[in-house]
């Protein structure tokens, strides 16, 4: 069984906080369903989460816009607060951290030291690799070096957002700061076996919140990442295009296309291909998990998919309103 440390397990913790076992099991079942796992998996999730101490999560931001952090704050099932109070210990996140300056850096460094080899490292933002990394510093240290330092002790690295996954907007042409994604920043360390942790890319600008939290829960349950595709993305969420599950797909199949954002076709929900939708080539969960408590998603609200979970989507020929085909 897992090393217990001195910390109570999740179930101890939840009981202390008055969370019923039934609520907990319902939560596990939902999480299993959005991860496209069989119903029996909710048992495994419950078992794993109930018997492990809360693992440390360290979140580093480099060339970020904070959209990824804002997005995870929108996660409703599970909520970020339930995760950070009940499921893991969010030991460093500069948007939410109470302490500042040296006190914050000490909290971060202590979490790395005390949980070496066991923590989950989350990174958002591109990472400027040129010029000693002076395009992004925190506490006088370059973001590049902070990421490299923290990666060595991580059990899992999650690159959230298209920037951390593939460079994203700072790496858009002409990539003024020499930005890259987490893989680019760690390439040498990986080659030298100084970083052994698996790296999961969770792209999207920003990613769907429940995709981020779902990946973390999967790892807490199984101690390994979900199956990844050749771009490092978890297949349960990135195995299909948003086009495959789009409610406008029947119109696509009938050849019915909106020609303007408010013409009759647009008002009837016709396919947005002619207005530049990149759905057919974009792998993400927007049309299945949907956004903001399933309120909507981009195509349902009338705009084509920007393709924001794909590498180099900012530089696609034809721009956001050019037709794919």
């Amino acid at each position, binding site marked *: 069984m897992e090393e217990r440390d001195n*910390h109570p397990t999740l179930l101890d*913790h939840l009981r*202390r906080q008055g969370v019923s076992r039934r609520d907990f099991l319902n939560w596990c079942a939902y999480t299993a369903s959005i991860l496209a796992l069989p119903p029996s998996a909710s048992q495994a999730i419950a078992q794993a989460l109930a018997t492990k101490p809360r693992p*440390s999560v360290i979140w580093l931001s480099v*060339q*970020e*816009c*904070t*959209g990824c952090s*804002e*997005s995870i*704050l*929108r996660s409703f099932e599970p*909520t970020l607060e339930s995760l*950070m*109070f009940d499921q893991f*210990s969010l030991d460093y996140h500069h*948007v939410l951290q*109470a*302490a500042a*300056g*040296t006190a914050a*850096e*000490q909290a971060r460094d*202590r*979490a790395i030291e005390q949980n070496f080899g066991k923590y989950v490292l989350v990174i958002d933002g*591109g990472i400027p690799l040129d010029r000693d*990394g002076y395009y*992004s*510093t*925190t*506490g*006088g*240290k370059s*973001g590049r*070096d902070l990421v490299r330092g923290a990666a060595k002790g991580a059990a899992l690295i999650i690159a959230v957002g298209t920037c951390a996954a593939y460079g994203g907007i*700072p790496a*858009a042409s*002409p990539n*003024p*700061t*020499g930005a890259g994604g987490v893989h680019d920043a760690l390439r040498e360390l990986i080659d030298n076996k100084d970083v052994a942790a698996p790296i999961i890319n969770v792209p999207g*600008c920003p990613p769907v919140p429940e995709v981020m939290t779902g990946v973390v829960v999967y790892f807490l349950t199984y101690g390994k990442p979900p199956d990844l595709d050749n771009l490092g993305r978890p297949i349960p969420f990135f195995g299909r295009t948003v086009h495959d599950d789009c409610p406008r797909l029947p119109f696509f199949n009938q050849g019915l296309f909106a020609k*303007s*954002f*408010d*013409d009759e076709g647009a*008002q009837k*929900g016709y396919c947005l291909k002619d207005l530049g939708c990149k759905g057919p080539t974009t792998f993400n969960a927007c049309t299945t998990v949907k*956004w903001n408590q399933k*309120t*909507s*998603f*981009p*195509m349902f*609200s*009338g*705009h084509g998919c920007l393709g924001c979970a794909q590498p180099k989507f900012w530089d696609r020929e034809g*721009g*956001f309103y050019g037709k794919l085909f």
Partner: protein
Amino acid sequence: MANSSKKAGEKPTAAAKNAPASQPRRIVVDPVTRIEGHLRIEAETDAQGVITRASSSGTMVRGIELILKGRDPRDAWAFTQRFCGVCTVVHSIASIRAVEYALGYVIPENAQHIRNLMIAAQYVHDHVMHFYHLHALDWVDVVSALKADPAATSKLQVSLSPWPNNSPAYFGAVQQRLKGFVESGQLGIFANGYWGHPEYKLPPEVNLLAIAHYLEALAWQRDVVKIHAIFGGKNPHPNFVVGGVPCAISATSHATAVNGDNLRLVGEVIDKMRQFVDQVYLPDTLAIAGFYKDWATRGEGVGNFLSYGEFPTGVGAAERNTLQFPPGVIINRDLAKVHPVNFEDPTEIQEFVAHSWYSYSAGKQVGLHPYDGETKLDYTGPKPPYEQLDVDQSYSWIKSPRWKGLPVEVGPLARVLILYASGEVRTRGLVDHSLGRLGLPISALFSTLGRVAARTIETKLIADMMPGMYDALMANIARGDLRTFDDVLFDPTTWPKKTRGVGMMEAPRGALAHWLTIEEGRIGNYQAVVPSTWNAGPRDAAGREGPYEAALRGHKLQDPSRPLEILRTIHSFDPCLACAVHVVDPKGEELVRVRVL
């Protein structure tokens, strides 16, 4: 938890490391947490611990404006939106307005109402989250809440407002949750805070109340962004379009997100926003402010204020004449006169780089209007890792914008002062009522506390305007006007060969404008001068401080190793650093020059 770090907050520099407490020293706060982005403050204190000079440094750049060069202007909103995922609406709107201004593009009336609703929703969402999740922990001691009496907390809540979560059992459960968390020994984001600092003045019950609302606001914010999801498809980063809005009104019950059910939901979300503002945010602000009246004379800053105006009810030529929040400038606290602001006069708005890591072809002493903007990277700071910046030289990636040579503060305080000075009745009522409740004079607004109060007051003003915006949209739809977009100028082949434009708006953090030139259907140059550039910029060529720097000067730090006072004043501005930083030229050679048409 308390006092767990003796040296917390202080970065001992070579000069300060061995200095006794009574010696001048330099305090470095980096990272300034609970903000968007990467901000560093270096504060020099005298023997009494009083800040004699503060220097504000933005330490991250991406160069998005440079990335925009040569692209389709219709795509620019999506790029500029990624300036910031907190201000997720504002840079899209500014960009789209700049393109529409350049083209003389008139949008349908419904589009204006929908944009107004999205902007207003951004304000209410953003200000509430700033108060509870980014600013509260400067005033609220989490550890002290463990000592609160839940029954007394309940009485307090009942006395403040009719908010339903008010029972002793409710506050007992919140306290129990907090206790379990602290006892687990894994303090997460609360680890190493300045808990127990003598500047924390709230009774335990007020601390517990605020922590309960910190948690409630986390749940509330998830719900109220549904307005952005309905009209923009998602939040963060909802979608927009030049020429209107992209969300067609549904012809059937569920062909698009803008259907009858969701329009009703918009109305419900507005009610939910207003209820939280009226029953939680506003009463909490006044209750907490009552214990911190000494902060009504600290942290003023430069005393000049600028707003561009927001919430147009008309379209086209009427757009700038129908702003519900007026534009203008207040100089040297003089509320008797609101000066007009001109966006295209080259002598009014200028950016300086005297202390920024850029250079201009005419030298570092001149200021340039954004239409004439130049950008040349000139990093002269220390090689990382470093302990200290040379603040007599260049020390920030942020430029120093000035209005007629003056540093000006932008944001909620600027807007409220301009509304107040303009005699706007509701603003006068709310300001006078709030100050009356606290027993403070109008001059109390010129302070750290005034900035916090102004943000709350403006949130109430805007939340109360939202039903009017909603009714205007619904009435227009009821009249049979379903237009949300005009395609007349969407095709770039219909555009003039060369044009230029400016898009103005008021973002939650203050005055925001994007200037662009369009040449042969492509972006020639793009310059954004954003709220946190105005507020967080470094000293200018004349040595005049930016608003953050001026506001910090004179602060006395009770415990320089735990500089809570610095956080209070900096957070009162609601810094947003990713927005604030400008174009970067990677090779330090290319000169980006606007060709004036």
